[in-house]
């Protein structure tokens, strides 16, 4: 098991991958990807029980991660590759013709690690209910983690799923909201204010934890805590505060890098701020 310093080193490499992938494709979503790099690194390298070398769609006796906000595919792909699900060099094919690394995650090209297509927002939590129910039917006590964007909570279907999970006590789900306060058109407070999410989730029957998604110590401790709490009658929601564009100074503090690719000069500037720890692909 890697210690938190090792996880921080992996996350740095993941951030380099994100910048290089999005630059290479000249499109993609770097902002949210950078913000969630610490979370996905912690989940895949420390928290989840899973088997990267032998990907099995059915995930028997494995924890499952569902990425509902599919546009942050760069961080998902990088972490899957760095974890051993598929060759790291394949990251270079991101968003290119005939690639298994589609712009948004998909299963049709059989990329190991992806269990459902996502991109059209608001659907991952519903899918997670099904996975969670299947695990219960199969007497499999592993967990289902589902990451959503905060802007994504504007989709009505999310609240259908939140209501179902909370009221029917589907307690093997751990939801995570990337609470960065930004979406394509601007701050969520301007586009469509989300209100008091903690109170809303609690009113829907969830136990709410809060964490700084860019502090590896907090991320690992909170995820461990969530896993311990899970299965005791109430689903767990983690409100994860992150900084969109985390790790690259000119991408932070703005929504402008939600879905824009850095040019070569910007790429080099970004990479100069991120340590190469595992070797670039």
């Amino acid at each position, binding site marked *: 098991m890697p210690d938190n310093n090792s996880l921080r080193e992996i996350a740095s490499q993941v951030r380099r991958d994100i910048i290089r992938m999005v630059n290479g494709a000249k499109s993609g979503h770097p902002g949210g990807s950078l913000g969630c790099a610490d979370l996905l690194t912690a989940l895949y390298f420390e928290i989840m029980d899973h088997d990267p070398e032998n990907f099995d*769609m*059915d*995930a*028997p006796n494995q924890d*499952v991660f*569902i990425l509902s906000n599919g546009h942050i595919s760069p961080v998902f792909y990088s972490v899957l590759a760095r974890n051993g699900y598929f060759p790291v060099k394949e990251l270079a094919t991101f968003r290119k013709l005939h690639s298994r690394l589609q712009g948004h995650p*998909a*299963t*049709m090209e059989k990329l190991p690690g992806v*269990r*459902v*297509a*996502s*991109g*059209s927002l*608001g*659907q*991952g*939590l*519903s*899918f*997670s*209910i*099904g*996975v*969670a*129910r*299947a*695990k219960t*039917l*199969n007497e*499999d006590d592993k967990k289902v983690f589902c990451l959503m964007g905060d802007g994504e909570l504007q989709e*009505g*279907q999310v609240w*259908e*799923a939140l*209501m*179902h999970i909370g009221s029917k006590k589907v307690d093997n789900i751990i939801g995570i909201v990337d609470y960065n306060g930004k979406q394509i058109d601007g701050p969520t407070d301007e586009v469509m204010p989300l209100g008091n999410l903690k109170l809303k989730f609690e009113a829907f029957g969830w136990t709410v934890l809060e964490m700084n998604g860019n502090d590896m110590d907090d991320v690992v401790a909170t995820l461990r805590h969530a896993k311990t709490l899970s299965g005791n009658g109430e689903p767990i929601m983690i409100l994860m505060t992150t900084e969109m564009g985390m790790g690259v100074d000119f991408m932070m503090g703005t929504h402008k890098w939600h879905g824009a690719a850095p040019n070569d000069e910007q790429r080099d500037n970004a990479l100069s701020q991120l340590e190469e720890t595992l070797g670039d692909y």
Partner: protein
Amino acid sequence: MKEVENREIIQMKEYKIINKRDTRSGFGEALYELGQSNPKVVALCADLTGSLKMNAFADNFPERFFQMGIAEANMIGTAAGLTIGGHIPFTGTFANFSTARVYDQIRQEVAYSEKNVKICASHAGITLGEDGATHQTLEDIGLMKMLPGMTVINPCDFNQTKQATKAIADHIGPVYLRFGRPVVPNFITDDRKFEIGKALKLIDGKDVSIFATGHLVWEALEAAKILNRKGISAEVVDIHTIKPLDEKAILESAKKTGCVVTAEEHSLNGGLGDSVAQVMARNFPIPQEYVAVMDSFGQSGTPAELMKHYGLDAGHIVASAEKAIGRKV
């Protein structure tokens, strides 16, 4: 019409009404039997358990039945997720709420994600009746057949709906199974095996091919009787599977008769007629007439009144057959 005017009445296979039942009850019975025979079968319903006849399954297999409430989008996503772990989810609600309401959810998480979900839809078409156009979908076949990899089935009676429900449990891949509300003639006997994608020829004929689906199959048989009395030999083929379409059977029949009538409880746009026309245009262009709803919404009324009003009955099939025959070169 001259060419057939003086023909003698020919022997024609007749179908007897075994009893009268709703197709949705065929679904409900089969689902219950699947619950007994296949532990992987699970069912989800969006607050219409009684309407979908899913009670027997729900009561006997409570651990495998999921009441989703009035949340169809969430139901489709949940069904897709249930396949992770090897289950075979059957979702149940009205056809309109099974398709148009949740099209993107089906598209992304079921069809594009290649999940083995069976979307089972009752109250399809205008025979839903008095509730009116908000609940009557006439677009669902078109919507669903446009999705790559989706199988689309519209069985014609109670027995066939039961057969089809069991068949889709053994089929790997997403399926849209469409059935209805009203009590209608049940006439498919057990020896007429149901095979996904395989058209069922019900009556041999040589003057016109009537390709019918769903509730219109019985009307096509009635039409064939009337045509027979007029000296016209109509071939009746039950196209229960609209996708994948049995092109071979369609072409074989059309080449023999030289003209086609399609009959369905669906919009003219996007239904069985469109699918058949595509086969004809690419392979063997001949006259084709459509018995379908002509690009309009439905309205309130009894099922029988509505079928008559929108021209979905034996009389209109007869008129269409005569018109198609008259257009033969």
